[in-house]
């Protein structure tokens, strides 16, 4: 299925072809010259006859040949795609005259072709799929024109447009909701009474209450007018904190891959629940952030901001001094991290002490390789104990840590915290 994503820019260029004799022409020339040479040296005219067909072919092919300049257009069906999603690149050549055209696609890094990478004709379509998230070149396109006699070849190479490949989001339907929600309209039932639709209780009627909220059954039982009360519905601020300092594990299922897929899934789930969602990407040298916002467009903004973590280094804001816009007070902070960087762990402790409600999704799914030497085995055990200690210390501070393997839906590890509102301990 080829997606119809946002319209991609058309790469169009008048291409200067580099024309040269084809291999076929060079072979014919060799045969012709060899025959002539032998005929002259050995005084054997039959060798001149042997040379004749090749020379005549070359001469006839040269006669009246016009080498065109062509215009090549390449248009991907989209410039935004998720991992393993297919997209097509339509290519067209204009002004080719009576030359035959051959296309060859050289896919870029982490771009896999689906089907043929070579095609003939003025128009062609290549289907590719990005294998890993990131900003990637689709590849280069080599176009070869052959004249009618196939004695001259014109070649040119064109760089195809860039593709923004988004991490394939994991599955998450449920959301973690804080017990104390800010006073803003939303869809989560709060613990205070309000104008929502979730039944909260019954109280005595006071003048000013609406008649339609009278609970007649309770009023009959108690002998006085009773009215239904409902829970207020509020929304929350959610900040997705992605640790991009450590990318360990197999490419495609590394810690950073899982962190971005998990964050993408969380961004979708929380924006679907009408929460304001923002993102902070923690990197070496600083952090990049995006203030919480609403709507599906915010999901793409978040993923776009996280794609910058591909570089692994950012000269952004200091993580310790993020503005209130990036980290609003009372926000739920969902952290995706392998917890390998001690400074990041310290930053989490610091945020917890400042009163943020946090939940860590541990995306570490790899270990140091096992070795035979006793010292290596001891080092491995010490490393494991350190990792356990880090997670234990975070739990002791009131930061839940759940492990996610990247395969199962995120709802499963988060189930303990999505069933009921999460207490925001101070």
């Amino acid at each position, binding site marked *: 299925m080829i997606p119809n994503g946002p319209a991609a820019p058309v790469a169009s260029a008048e291409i200067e072809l580099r024309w040269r004799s084809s291999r076929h022409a060079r*072979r014919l020339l060799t*045969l*012709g010259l060899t025959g002539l040479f032998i005929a002259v040296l050995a005084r054997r005219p*039959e060798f001149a006859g042997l040379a*004749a067909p090749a*020379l005549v072919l070359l001469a006839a092919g040269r006669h009246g040949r016009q080498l065109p300049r062509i215009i090549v257009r390449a248009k991907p069906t989209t410039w935004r795609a998720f991992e393993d999603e297919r997209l097509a690149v339509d290519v067209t050549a204009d002004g080719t005259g009576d030359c035959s055209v051959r296309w060859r696609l050289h896919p870029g890094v982490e771009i896999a072709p689906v089907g043929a990478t070579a095609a003939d004709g003025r128009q062609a379509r290549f289907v590719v799929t990005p294998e890993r998230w990131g900003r990637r070149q689709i590849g280069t396109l080599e176009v070869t024109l052959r004249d009618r006699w196939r004695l001259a070849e014109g070649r040119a190479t064109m760089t195809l447009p860039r593709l923004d490949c988004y991490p394939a989001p994991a599955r998450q339907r449920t959301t973690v909701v804080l017990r104390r929600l800010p006073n803003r309209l939303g869809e989560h039932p709060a613990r205070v009474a309000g104008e929502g639709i979730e039944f909260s209780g019954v109280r005595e009627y006071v003048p000013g209450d609406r008649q339609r909220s009278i609970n007649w059954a309770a009023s009959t039982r108690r002998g006085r007018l009773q009215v239904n009360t409902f829970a207020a519905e509020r929304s929350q601020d959610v900040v997705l904190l992605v640790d991009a300092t450590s990318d360990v594990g197999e490419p495609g299922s590394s810690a950073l891959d899982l962190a971005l897929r998990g964050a993408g899934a969380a961004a979708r789930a929380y924006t679907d629940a009408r929460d304001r969602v923002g993102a902070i990407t923690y990197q070496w040298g600083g952090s990049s952030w995006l203030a919480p916002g609403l709507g599906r467009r915010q999901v793409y903004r978040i993923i776009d901001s996280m794609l910058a973590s591909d570089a692994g280094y950012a000269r952004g804001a200091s993580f310790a001094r993020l503005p209130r816009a990036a980290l609003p007070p009372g926000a739920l902070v969902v952290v995706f991290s392998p917890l390998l960087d001690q400074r990041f762990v310290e930053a989490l402790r610091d945020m917890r002490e400042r009163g943020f409600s946090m939940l860590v999704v541990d995306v570490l799914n790899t270990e140091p390789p096992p070795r035979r030497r006793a010292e290596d085995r001891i080092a491995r055990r010490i490393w494991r104990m350190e990792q356990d200690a880090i997670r234990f210390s975070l739990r002791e501070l009131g930061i839940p840590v759940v492990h996610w393997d990247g395969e199962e839906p995120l709802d499963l590890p988060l189930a303990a915290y999505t069933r009921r509102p999460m207490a925001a301990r101070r």
Partner: protein
Amino acid sequence: MTGRATGPATALASLLRGAAGAVRVRAAAVLLGAGSLVWAALPAVHRGDATFALDVAIAGVAAGGLRLALAAVPVPEESYWPSPGVRAWRIVLDLVRHVPWEEGAVIGIAWLEVLHPSRPWHTAVLGAGLIAYLLITHLAESDAPLAALRPQARVLALGAVLLALGAGAGMLPAAGPGAGSALLRLVAAGALIAAAGLVLPSIARDV
């Protein structure tokens, strides 16, 4: 091969047909090369450089066939520290793909032929075999259909006439000297000079 996608079954059938056609054309190219080689080499000549010419021709035909067979094999991707096996495989592919083996084969075969005593019609058949070998090799390496040669049919016919003319001219000394034979040799030489005159200016432009 076309880039347009169709149904899976149709695509598979078309892929298999295409693969079978490609194998046939490649096999035909190798057989034509081998046939021309044997045609030029027999009867065996035991002169000094015959063995070397035979080696050159065999190597050219064999490696040319190998190049056609490996045409669809992708070059291993660049990596920072490739294994010795991958490096060796890259070298083999480079060697097979970039050395002009067919040119070597043509020179070797013509050399073998010239080591024999004059046999004009035999040489003419060899010429036809060699030109067919080069044309089929071109079709095989560019995956072009046989119909791609249709515009060249008349020129190839003219080439065949000149080939026969050359063979006839080669036979004339055996018929004895005379005014007719001198005239025919003159016509043959004139045709060849005309052909060379047509092609050499464009060669000079290329160089």
